[in-house]
């Protein structure tokens, strides 16, 4: 019960962040990109909670609005890589044979290259922009899900309930997606939740290096990058988006951990009941 409450608490916090990201542009009273050079690099005050950047833009406002780009692009990236990787992995695990060998060798190639270096190369070739950064990271993140799903399907498909499903006249798609998927879903969701933090950091990293979101978009990684030269004179410019990344990554990591703990307990409870 304690684990369930913990999971619920972090779910509420994560939903809170997603809600902020969703409604921020509609509830703010200033244009987050509007420049006011007279108020450049103002320290945090009542008027500007997180201070202002070198163009006089309100940092609090930009952190709120930046959540949309940072959080949603991360969620989209994790969703796409988990769905794509899991589907590929399930097909490989179920059919095995030549298809499995070819795709898994391909995933080995992707896994053998340092992820961030590969993403940098892809983003460098494709050019800047958040869509290209998401695509670059998608290329390096799907093999993890494919490997996970494949190993799970390889073990699940030997279970008698899959034989029973075949005998009930289910076709291959029904067996993979209706019978096997629900039994590996918890594992995939846990991995995806734990991946949100990592992907957010990597996406912010690409933006920081100028290969992600483009100015004047409010995006946390890009905001940190543009403020890095002022870390000694105006630290709030880099601390505000840095703090936002820290809080968001921590909440999603804790959500992933608590969800995994909760799933473990449920699994054990079901196991003991059946005995």
């Amino acid at each position, binding site marked *: 019960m304690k684990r369930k409450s913990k999971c619920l608490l972090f779910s509420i916090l994560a939903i809170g962040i997603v809600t902020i990201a969703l409604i921020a542009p509609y509830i703010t009273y200033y244009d987050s990109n509007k420049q006011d050079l007279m108020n450049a690099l103002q320290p945090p005050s009542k008027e500007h909670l997180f201070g202002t950047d070198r163009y006089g833009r309100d940092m609090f406002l930009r952190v709120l609005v930046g959540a949309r780009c940072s959080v949603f692009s991360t969620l989209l990236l994790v969703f796409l890589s988990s769905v794509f990787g899991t589907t590929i992995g399930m097909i490989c695990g179920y059919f095995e044979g030549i298809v499995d060998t070819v795709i898994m060798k391909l995933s080995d190639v992707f896994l053998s290259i340092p992820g961030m270096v590969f993403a940098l190369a892809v983003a460098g070739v494709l050019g800047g922009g958040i869509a290209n950064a998401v695509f670059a990271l998608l290329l390096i993140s799907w093999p993890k899900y494919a490997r996970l799903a494949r190993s799970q399907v390889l073990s699940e498909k030997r279970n008698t*309930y899959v034989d*029973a499903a075949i005998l*009930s*006249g289910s076709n291959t798609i029904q067996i993979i997606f209706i*019978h096997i998927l629900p*039994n590996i879903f918890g594992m995939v969701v846990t991995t995806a939740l734990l991946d949100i933090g990592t992907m957010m950091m990597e996406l912010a990293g690409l933006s920081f290096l100028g290969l992600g979101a483009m100015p004047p978009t409010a995006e946390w990684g890009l905001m940190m990058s543009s403020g890095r030269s002022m870390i000694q004179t105006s630290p709030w410019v880099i601390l505000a988006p840095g703090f936002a990344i820290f809080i968001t990554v921590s909440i999603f990591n804790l959500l992933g951990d608590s969800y995994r703990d909760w799933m473990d307990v449920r699994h054990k409870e*079901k196991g003991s*009941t*059946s005995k």
Partner: protein
Amino acid sequence: MNTILEVKCLEKSYHQKKAVNQVSFQVSKGEIVGIVGESGSGKSTIARMICRLEDADQGNIYLNGENITKVIHKQQREIYKHIQMVFQNPKESFHPKRKLGTSILEGMRNQKISKKSAETRMYELLKACELPLEYAVRYPHEVSIGECQRAAIARALATKPSIVIFDEATSSLDVTIQKQMLDLLHHLQKQDDLTYIFISHDLALVQQFCHRIIIMKEGRIVEEGLPDKLINNPTTTYTKELIEAAFCW
């Protein structure tokens, strides 16, 4: 008698070791055939090949005169209208996250039987298998192993098959539940004129339950015959050993 199932020269190897070697037998309609042998003798492999859960390396399987040895896709799904199987561990044979009723309905729904008719049939089967109707909304971990095996029998009978294969289906049950289960199977067999292939390593149980017994060892049929004749006049040393082991109490 009408031959409903015929197995001819069936062979299957795993890692160059023959699990099933030149096995041939026939099963007539309404007959209960017991296949007995020690673990690893190839009994379950034969059952799995008949149900197309495994591919045969050689040989043929005929269902109502039609060769089903290599059927795939739609034709494979067609044979499950006629052949069903009940597994050894009932809890593992049900999807852990689906209600028993959903699993029982599945075969009928896959045969495009309307939801209403399928549900009516499901409740009839639960009643026939002496299970309370509310068990349709229970999960496998919420019922006992005996009740789960009854639900597995209901699922196997849902599509009105003519042949049901029981692969060590009573081995995981305690003696009293085993007796109840055999009574139930006898009743259902007489009621619907079903054909059973009953796989077990328990010769005493098979003697009481089956019309004919096939003894297997190391993938081959070593002896075949009527239960009483085979028990009283065994012709092979292996059958004698099995009899001694089964009736030593």
